[in-house]
């Protein structure tokens, strides 16, 4: 295939020569085909299961709708209830209530955007018309009407976008320093990291930025539930907490090694960390520094934790094994097994549990 581009002929030639150094053949033919065949069979099984599901849904629709009405409270309520495993098992399953915002892969022809997934797993994702670009983190306004995300403009610039989750109406803020991974506090302030690792806050309605503490660097800044403190990951890969006004030095929190992302609720700080080969979830008590793994018994990496408003549940992503089993899960922090609430392709998604309004 050739195109009318007189420039770049030498670059083309040298890239071809560079490509001659690429691996000559894929060394994992048998392993790849074995996984691919399993994945293809799973896909066909899914299609078959979908057809069965259609008939089941038709049969059970009335009962399911009745259940939804009975189990979904209106207004603020605890975000969990004890439920029984489908199929009559005696195992208890803790089903969460509420909605989880998922900023991820969009429909064909569009960039990643916002969809809403029911935390109880009953109902598919409700896709909104909000967004069409990738982002690393999603955060809700305290009233649950809007979200804030960072949007990359080019390799040196980014903006903060506050978007109405229903209409998509957006407000763009352009603090300097290429803002990223913003988090919205109950007090109405936004905290974000800059490209060079500084931590800044600003009012959600716009206004001047404030450096949390001069010389302080970190990533993934996260508000405490009361908006008085900020947890973050230090440049050396540790958890730390600093007062929102930065008047005192940050306190390092003993916790899992190599944290990657976190969320903070009344129950503690949920952390995705990679102490070994795979990323796993931990719950850290910021007052004592104690931490414990959130045992999900799932293979694969567990990332992007977001906690329910009452802190009783954690939603997270799992990338599965061999292309199967991945998706969005919800697990109670104290007991029960994780519930797969959406098995879509979530490999690039950002999650945030919607506040109860």
């Amino acid at each position, binding site marked *: *295939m*050739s*195109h009318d*581009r007189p*420039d*770049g*002929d*030498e*670059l*083309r030639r*040298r*890239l*071809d*020569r*560079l*490509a*001659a*150094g*690429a*691996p*000559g*053949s*894929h*060394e*994992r*033919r048998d*392993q*790849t*085909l074995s*996984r*691919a*065949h399993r*994945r*293809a069979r*799973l*896909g*066909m099984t899914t*299609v078959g299961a979908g057809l069965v599901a259609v008939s089941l849904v038709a049969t059970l629709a009335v009962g399911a709708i009745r259940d939804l009405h009975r189990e979904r409270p209106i207004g603020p309520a605890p975000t969990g209830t004890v439920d029984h495993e489908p199929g009559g098992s005696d195992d208890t399953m803790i089903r969460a209530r509420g909605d989880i915002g998922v900023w991820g892969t969009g429909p064909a022809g569009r*960039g990643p955007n916002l969809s809403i997934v029911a935390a109880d797993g009953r109902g598919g994702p409700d896709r909104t018309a909000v967004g069409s670009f*990738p982002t*690393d983190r999603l955060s809700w306004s305290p009233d649950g009407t809007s979200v804030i995300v960072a949007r990359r403009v*080019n*390799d040196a610039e980014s903006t903060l976008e506050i978007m109405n989750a229903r209409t998509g109406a957006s407000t763009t803020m352009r603090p300097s320093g290429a803002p990223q*991974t913003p988090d919205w506090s109950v007090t109405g302030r936004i905290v974000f990291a800059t490209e060079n690792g500084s931590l800044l806050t600003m009012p959600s309605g716009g206004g001047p930025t404030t450096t949390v503490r001069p010389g302080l660097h970190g*990533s*993934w800044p996260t508000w405490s539930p009361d908006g008085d403190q900020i947890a973050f*990951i230090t440049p050396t*890969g540790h958890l730390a907490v600093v007062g929102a006004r930065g008047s005192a030095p940050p306190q390092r929190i003993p916790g899992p090694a*190599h944290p*990657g*992302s976190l969320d903070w609720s009344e129950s503690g700080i949920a952390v995705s960390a*990679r102490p070994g080969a795979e*990323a796993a979830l931990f719950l850290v008590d910021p007052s004592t520094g104690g931490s414990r793994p959130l045992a999900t018994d799932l293979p694969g990496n567990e*990332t992007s934790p977001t906690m329910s408003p009452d802190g009783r549940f954690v939603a997270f992503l799992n990338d599965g094994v*061999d*292309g*199967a089993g991945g998706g969005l899960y919800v697990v109670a922090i104290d007991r029960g097994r994780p519930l797969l609430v959406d098995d879509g*392709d979530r*490999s*690039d998604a950002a999650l945030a549990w919607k506040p109860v309004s």
Partner: protein
Amino acid sequence: MIAAVGDHVAGGASADRLGVLYEAHAADALRLAWMLTGDRTVAQDLVQDAFVKMAGRLAHLRHREAFGAYLRVTVVNLARMRGRRLKVEREYLARHQADLREPHRDPDVAATETLRQALDRLPFRQRAAIVLRFFEDLPDDVTAQVLGCRRTTVRSLIHRGLGTLREDLGEWVG
């Protein structure tokens, strides 16, 4: 280069189809993954994951003859997500520094190595845009579809990428 639309496999039993698709596309996908990452092991991983992903979607492809084009998009997306995720998890630097410098067969080792190092320094989207245009030889509108952006953005990425390469490598870049 990954085969263009309609090049391979218009039919065949499903049991054999994956094998045929693999033979037809794996080598080209591997070269693209390697050009995007510069890392032999990662490229092998990306191609395996991309192929498995595509296998899961095979039954749902609207245009099965376009498998190669879909695979290309999947490879680029996985390479991009790898970069983003590693950056978020603050592992990128460690991995990047650990990149294996593969011995290559080019007689002009110094020039080739210099080009590879210059590509390594480019942000991912600039690198991808350069590779897709000058190595995969894709027109801007197809590159825009692969990268999920507008044609003007592709041109901007290429312009900036070429500018950086020119600073590193000289005016021959074009």
